[in-house]
């Protein structure tokens, strides 16, 4: 009778775990604390849609590229997004934190992602091809998590 777990399985498991730890260590180093001039960058369909200062509170409606919205009909941020578009995301910047508060997609992954506030963090909505990320700005450069304690 064959063994249920063999030596090669354990070796493979260890290699995979090391790869995962190395990747997460590399990724956490690439993140840095957001500086005072940090900006929220919103990309839609692989192109830059808008950027806003992280320090200013606002709500932004981002129509999906599949809406075929022209520059002429800019979304009215004061009206509910669902009245204006069928495919959209609503990005909320509040108190130095960014979240996707509303999304037209079925899975709602971006909404459940919660808030981001660190430089380099991002929220992604695949169905609407939206990327929201934080550019740490100049004063946040190289700070990392340690800048909180320094």
């Amino acid at each position: 009778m064959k063994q249920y777990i063999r030596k090669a399985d354990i070796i493979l498991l260890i290699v995979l775990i090391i790869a995962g730890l190395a990747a997460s260590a590399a990724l956490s180093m690439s993140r840095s604390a957001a500086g005072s001039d940090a900006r929220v960058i919103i990309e839609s369909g692989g192109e830059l849609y808008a950027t806003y200062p992280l320090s200013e509170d606002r709500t932004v409606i981002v129509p999906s590229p599949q809406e075929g919205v022209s520059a002429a009909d800019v979304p009215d941020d004061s009206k509910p997004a669902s009245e204006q578009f069928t495919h959209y995301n609503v990005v909320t910047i509040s108190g130095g934190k960014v979240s996707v508060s509303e999304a037209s997609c079925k899975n709602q992954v971006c909404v459940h992602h919660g808030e981001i506030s660190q430089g380099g963090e991002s929220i992604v909505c695949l169905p609407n091809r939206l990327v929201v990320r934080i550019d740490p700005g100049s004063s946040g450069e190289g700070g990392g998590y340690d800048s909180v304690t320094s």
Partner: protein
Amino acid sequence: MTQSPRNTRPAASGSGGSSPQRGGSSAQFVARVALMASLALIFSYVEAIIPYNPGIPGIKLGIANVVTVIALYKYGWKEAASVSVIRIIVAGLLFNGVFGMLYSLAGAVLSLIGMIGLKKTGLFSVIGVSMAAGVLHNMGQLLVAAALIEDLRIFFYFPVLLFSGIAAGILVGIISTMVLRVVK
């Protein structure tokens, strides 16, 4: 009713024909794959209706892959690949959506290649093969996501998907081992 004589003919000609591999005749192949694909589809469905959201996309047990692993070990790679692809296409049309189907297909192709390769080496147990498949499945999905969104930042999900792939793969492997012990 009137079709039954027609259905038996390929079986008769197939068993004496050019494909006497260990799967048997082509009718046996079709019946076997159809049965396993529908079983896998039920697993997919059960998983889809369980209201479980860990907050991160792409993380699920993938219990339907138990059927793929069993198909691979009990019959062969042709059966495993057929079951996997049929299950994903039908599940995509029924409940996962076209995008979900695209991700799953990429994951399935990668994990099938990985499983067949690792099984051929003869070094790994069912659990090891399934673990590698779980990781590769998630990596395939990540690659498609990166291509669709045209942003490599999505690789922030890499470690999360890697560890969840390991965990899901091991669980699927354990279940498969238990089932294979009985059906073999």
